[in-house]
């Protein structure tokens, strides 16, 4: 153990002056080719390069995935979270920039990519996305300008492909744990048998 962890530290000076929070990023991962990108979590980073690096290091290592995208939290615009499933609207059009649409199936669930719409601004994008993707099964829509979404890799090859990650999955231990419990219980049964055998017969 390092000395710093063994030694008690006294602080005489005041805390350093506050540091501003870095930008908040929302991260989505894709588990297999053709599947949507689903919300994975958040991270804090000052710029795109570090955000992608942190996303890869953290969420890429969390679970096997073939792609990670992220966007600055402030670049996302969420529509209302409906108490009832959203019904299609009537706003249509194909002018403006490309916006990526994320849908939320139920409150408390995770947003996932659904497709794209074109629109001149976020509010119009939300309306057009509602027309295109609200099918009576989703509760909310998020739109993010597509050029504000950043991707770690687009070749659909696994991130950390050489990494055996079974050691960090519950199922990676199941077989071993089951075998060890079986041995314990077998031994206990045998011990009981041996004691009873001795006391009753010898």
């Amino acid at each position: 153990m390092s000395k710093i962890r063994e030694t008690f530290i006294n602080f005489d000076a005041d805390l350093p002056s506050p540091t501003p929070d870095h930008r908040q990023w929302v991260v989505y991962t894709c588990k297999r080719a053709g599947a949507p990108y689903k919300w994975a979590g958040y991270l804090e980073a000052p710029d795109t390069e570090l955000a992608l690096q942190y996303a890869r290091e953290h969420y890429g290592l969390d679970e096997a995935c073939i792609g990670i995208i992220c966007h600055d939290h402030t670049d996302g615009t969420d529509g209302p979270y409906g108490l009832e499933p959203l019904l299609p609207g009537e706003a249509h059009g194909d002018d403006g920039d490309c916006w990526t649409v994320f849908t939320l199936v139920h409150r408390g669930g995770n947003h996932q990519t659904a497709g794209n719409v074109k629109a001149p601004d976020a509010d119009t994008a939300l309306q057009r996305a509602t027309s295109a993707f609200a099918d009576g099964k989703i509760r909310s829509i998020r739109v993010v300008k597509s050029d504000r979404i950043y991707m770690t890799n687009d070749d659909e090859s696994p991130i950390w492909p050489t990494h055996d990650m079974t050691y960090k999955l519950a199922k990676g231990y199941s077989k071993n744990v089951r075998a060890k419990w079986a041995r314990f219980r077998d031994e206990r049964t045998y011990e009981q048998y041996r004691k009873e055998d001795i006391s009753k017969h010898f």
Partner: protein
Amino acid sequence: MSGAANPVMPSDITINADPEKLAEFESRIADGVLIEPGDWMPDEYRAMMLRMAEHHANSEIIGALPEGEWITRAPSMLRKLALTAKVQDEVGHGQMLYRVSQELGKSRDDMLRDLVTGKTKYHNCFNYPCPTWADIAMVQWLIDGAAIMNQKTLADGAYGPYVRTMNRINMEEAFHFKSGEDMVLTLMSGTKGQKTMTQQAFDRWWPISLMFFGPEDKPNAEELPPMKWRMKVERNDSLRQRFVNRFAPAAIDLGLKINIVTKDEKGFVTSTKPDEAIKLDDSTGNWSFTEPDWDEFWRVIRGNGPCNAHRVALRRLSYEQGAWVRRAIANEEVAVPPAA
């Protein structure tokens, strides 16, 4: 080490919200509708939810400290990999929970400063020492096991961002628990010395696990805001009973003895005697047990536990040592970093 959210929540608050809006809010919660960030919520709900998420986030990053100390001393490469991954998970959980808290209105820097100056708390169980590898096994088996039980109920709460974060976290907690169970099974299949070490660690961590869920709730807890607003959905005592029902028979199967212990001020056991209360009540299906020392619980929560000062000091050191990095990556002017 996992940090489930178990702050002692205030229950005697005055609610100053618009009665009509409050009634609608409470009716939604009663109907099982989850609250999302854009929804109207009483200020008191926001404040309590922030307190709960911040406490949980603090627990995750403080909880990484005792286990982090053991990465370099793990007994095999596999255990080292698993422990490194687990510590990374815990810090990642902190990352997500701080984000949930930020959305409720407090900056991350304010939260980190409040943590290192003692204005906010973290889970009590992280104020105890982990002197042996068996303590790490016990933490993963008992504390992470308790955390899963608690957090599964929290994932059934009412605040959407916290619920989705809990679901994500619980997936990883399952690995922590299973890894811990494997470690305990390995140690209890080992030499006499390893079994003794494991029993000693179990003696240290069993009472802490019982305290994990917090003290008994008030009799009318269901009518008070934390439960009425589904910030928590199960009574502390009920969770504790479920924990004992799951872990007491498992410990006995493994050959561990469940003892009542006394401890010194450093958290080390000074005496043990068998807990005669441990037995299965066939009529209820519940295991009876001796309550932990609640005086100790309050002593530790007030800052007088074996490791409170050390944990906060280490966290403060990280905060101070990391300040120049935070400034540098934000393109701010930086001074020479302070010496460790």
